[in-house]
């Protein structure tokens, strides 16, 4: 039934000559699936559901996008699946998280590298921030670093796991401040890491700006610094790390976007690369994203390709010492 409707819709659109002039035959003629390598309810899943909600519109892809979750091991499970088992026919897309999957491929033990995938478009950029509990004595990054200097290896702080954006931020902080810290990876993602900060199990934490924004609104945490090049519009009052005297760039910013496995036909990639960014620009998508506290940052395929190459180089250098 559904196929029939989709078929009829496609036929209708072909008749009116509205769509797919540049497409791969009649692609897409059935629903597309987007693999998210984190669980339902996580930030990536939540944002992926919003940015793809208009996919069925006539001016977008014309078919709905369904989200499939393949969570596990910081995203490795899902990306392994996409690189090795998914069909490269254009009906299987994947959501990427930079720097996570590039850092994991440098660390090794996974069946993908940045070359296993073709980027389509980027929808969001979520910088890492340093948070402490609302009643913490720390009021600036300098306080944190001073404490770490007095207690080498004794400053415990949480993050969402190893070889994800939060871990990269932690490594950058250690390097820039010249101190030894105790990074405690959480198995329950950013939410678990945030909980351990609020509960006082650890002295501080690296977390997503979007989650920290909500936690600060709720009065649970203080945000001491942003691991990015500029201050963020959601938190104009929080200084960047560079402003506080630490030489840290935006290598840990969590970029989220859509990619396909290598081997997907070029016309399909071109069609997606043309349509998907316009889908992200949709005003109702933008409205829902900003209401949810999720910073957007739309980038085209060419821009993402450049960003991937740049990250690959930075991360290789940063992780070489490990």
């Amino acid at each position, binding site marked *: *039934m*559904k*196929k029939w409707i989709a078929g009829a819709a496609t036929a209708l659109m072909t008749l009116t000559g509205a769509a797919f002039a540049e497409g791969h035959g009649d692609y897409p003629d059935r*629903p597309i*699936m987007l693999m998210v390598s984190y669980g339902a309810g996580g930030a990536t899943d939540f944002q992926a559901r919003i940015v793809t909600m208009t996919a069925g519109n006539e001016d977008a892809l014309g078919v709905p996008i*369904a989200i*499939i979750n393949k969570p596990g091991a910081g995203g490795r499970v899902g990306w392994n699946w996409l690189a090795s088992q998914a069909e490269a026919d254009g009906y299987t897309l994947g959501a990427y998280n930079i720097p996570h999957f590039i850092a994991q491929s440098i660390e090794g033990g996974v069946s993908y590298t940045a070359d296993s995938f073709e980027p389509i478009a980027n929808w969001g950029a979520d910088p890492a921030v340093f948070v402490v509990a609302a009643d913490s004595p720390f009021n600036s990054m300098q306080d944190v670093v001073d404490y770490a200097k007095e207690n080498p290896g004794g400053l415990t702080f949480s993050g969402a796991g190893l070889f994800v954006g939060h871990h990269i931020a932690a490594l950058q902080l250690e390097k820039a401040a010249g101190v030894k810290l105790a990074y405690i990876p959480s198995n329950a993602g950013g939410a678990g890491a945030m909980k351990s900060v609020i509960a006082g199990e650890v002295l501080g934490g690296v977390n997503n700006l979007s989650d920290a924004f909500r936690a600060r609104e709720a009065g649970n945490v203080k945000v001491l610094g942003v691991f990015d090049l500029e201050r963020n519009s959601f938190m104009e009052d929080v200084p960047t790390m560079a402003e506080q005297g630490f030489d840290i760039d935006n290598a840990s910013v969590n970029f989220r976007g859509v990619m396909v496995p290598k081997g997907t036909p070029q016309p399909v990639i071109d069609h997606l690369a043309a349509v998907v960014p316009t889908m992200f620009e949709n005003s109702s998508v933008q409205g829902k994203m900003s209401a949810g506290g999720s910073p957007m940052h739309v980038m085209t395929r060419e821009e993402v390709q450049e960003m991937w190459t740049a990250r690959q180089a930075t991360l290789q250098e940063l992780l070489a010492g490990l």
Partner: protein
Amino acid sequence: MNDLPRNQHIIASGVVAAVGIWVTYVSYTQEPAAAFLFPRMISTVFVVLALWTFGKAVMGRSKVGAGLSAAAMKNIAPGLIVALIYIFWAARGLGFYTASTITFFILLSLYDPAPHAELRSWIKRIIITAGFLAVMYALFAGLLNVYTPREIFF
């Protein structure tokens, strides 16, 4: 007492013990050691308990569990073979719903006590199969939008 269950107990607990030994071996030899700390703790307990159980089976002191009778195995074999072919091959090879329909019908016919000679029992089986698959299709493909391997029917 019949010796059959005792031999079966030895085989069953022997298989479990072999798995336990393998798990322990892998846990203690694989790197990185930090990631295998917990498997080492578990596998040590695992292998001790498994060898204990194996020892009890060899001494003929396993009391729990009825074992397998030849008659039951004969009844199980055809159904199990059909089910395994369905799961490990047909679901992908023939298409999810096609394979499910065929398997459902075969299993029903294999175990339905109604006489095979009568047309009525075959009609009944076809109706039940069609009804079940219609419900499954409505629930999973219609309501839940589950994408099956290959196309929906083939």
